[in-house]
């Protein structure tokens, strides 16, 4: 094992601590900036309607047996007929979300704002760290690690002989970037702390197709067998009353 490296206390005072503090401050600042830039969510009548329609169709499927056959058929026709049924999505009209996004300038604007508040400060801080603190060891972990962690902890140092428990400054920046979530929950409250990793996930899984839901619900209604449960109720009510009278 190589000789222990002695880390200057000045590194702690001028690199390690300031880096963390700056990261925290930037996180808080970004939270407030994104809060300022967030435009109020405007509801789209069509989307609201579709959501409510699905609830209603689901109710019909779940409790269809409780209404008379005639009423059930009328409703099913209303929902699923091929001409203008509410659940019927004409072929070709089903928009894919990507196209929808570009056709709606508001949406694109929102995305851009989100991106701005995320990417700009990140690239700036990364550049800052790279410029001032690149290429030296900033901290030492109090426990040994296997060499596989080298790429994670010693980013920016190309020495294979340095013990893995030493952390390079650039890696310290990454550790802070992804590891400060707990602290943000403490500072900004449970709901507000948005982790970068989470944000990236959100970007990835963007937009589910609502027309798929509609047609799934339509298929469900089409194969539903109506059975009027109420017709058996007279018999059962008789039993209930007989028990009660006796």
């Amino acid at each position, binding site marked *: 094992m190589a000789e222990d490296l002695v880390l200057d206390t000045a590194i702690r005072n001028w690199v390690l601590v300031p880096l963390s503090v700056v990261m925290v401050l930037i996180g808080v600042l970004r939270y407030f900036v994104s809060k300022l830039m967030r435009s109020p969510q405007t509801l789209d009548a069509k989307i609201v309607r579709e959501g409510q329609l699905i609830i209603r169709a689901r109710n019909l499927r779940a409790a269809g047996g409780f209404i008379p056959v005639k009423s059930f058929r009328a409703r099913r026709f209303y929902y699923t007929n091929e001409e203008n049924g509410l659940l019927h999505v004409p072929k070709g009209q089903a928009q894919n979300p990507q196209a929808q996004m570009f056709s709606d300038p508001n949406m694109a604007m929102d995305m851009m704002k989100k991106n701005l508040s995320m990417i700009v400060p990140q690239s700036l801080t990364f550049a800052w760290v790279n410029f001032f603190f690149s290429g030296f060891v900033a901290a030492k972990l109090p426990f040994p690690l296997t060499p596989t962690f080298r790429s994670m902890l010693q980013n920016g140092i190309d020495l294979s002989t340095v013990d893995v428990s030493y952390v390079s400054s650039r890696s310290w920046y990454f550790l802070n970037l992804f590891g400060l979530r707990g602290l943000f929950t403490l500072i900004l409250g449970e709901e507000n702390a948005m982790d970068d990793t989470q944000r990236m996930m959100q970007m990835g899984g963007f937009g589910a197709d609502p027309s798929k839901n509609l047609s799934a619900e339509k298929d469900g209604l089409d194969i539903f067998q109506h059975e009027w449960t109420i017709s058996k109720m007279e018999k059962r009510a008789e039993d209930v009353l007989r028990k009660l*009278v006796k």
Partner: protein
Amino acid sequence: MATAVEEAQLNQLEIQVDNGGGGAWEYLCLVRKLKARRSDKVLKHGLFILNNPRARSKLGEEEFTLYEQVAFAAMDCRRNDIAKDCIGALFKKFPGSIRVGRLEGMLYEAKGAWSEAEKVYTRLLADSPLDQVILKRKVAMAKAQGNSAAAAEYLNKYLETFMADHDAWRELAELYISIQMYKQAAFCYEELILCQPACPLYHLAYADVLYTMGGLENLQAAKKYYSSTINLTGGKNTRALYGICLCSVAINQLTKGRNKDEKDISDLQSLAAEGLLRDYKERAPKKLSLVTTTLRNIKMVS
């Protein structure tokens, strides 16, 4: 809906506050949380806090929530002057807010200035056409003016978008009943039954509407729904028992003379009549003779 525990807690707190035991703010918060309508108390205690600068400043930002609550209570108690002051304070703090705009519209409503209220709501709707509260206010306004048909029309328009709002469906059903459009009312009750199939009240109301519409098919269906109400309530619902009796009578009258062989052989109606008599014997013995004669007149008991 408040649970029994919460209700008890609220009552206890109310007594405490009424007797000067403090905790007025906690009381008001609880009223707000449970959506209880105790406007007179809210007005009294809320106003006390608002008129007391020290107590008011202690609330901080919550002060404006209180202003809103007191404004509602004041309108409920016809103290429009107080409501106006509250809304004025809110306007100063949040100019252009929709929530305050709603209050303003409601104040006009409370004064009976319908056209002005209408103007306010129209203006607000231009900004946010999907505001559920305002759309419902318009329905309420039409209803308050006694124009049930217009109210039903507004409500229909509202339900076109918010079609899973079962409270609105219930309101629409009642509106239709009040203007005697039973077919439409029946549709609304069907919708409600779909939404909450285990709620006996909807079954009962649906049966009532079917019975009112008349016709053999409807009467038979009504009887079935009365039966299901009995099922769901364990035979405790007096109205459903009466419904069974009346439906049976009406069905018998309609089928009298023809197809004798298909006569209803079930003894549901006699059981229902018996259940009724038993119920009255227990709970209102004074009226027992009256019920007995009535039932005897329609030949339900001998």
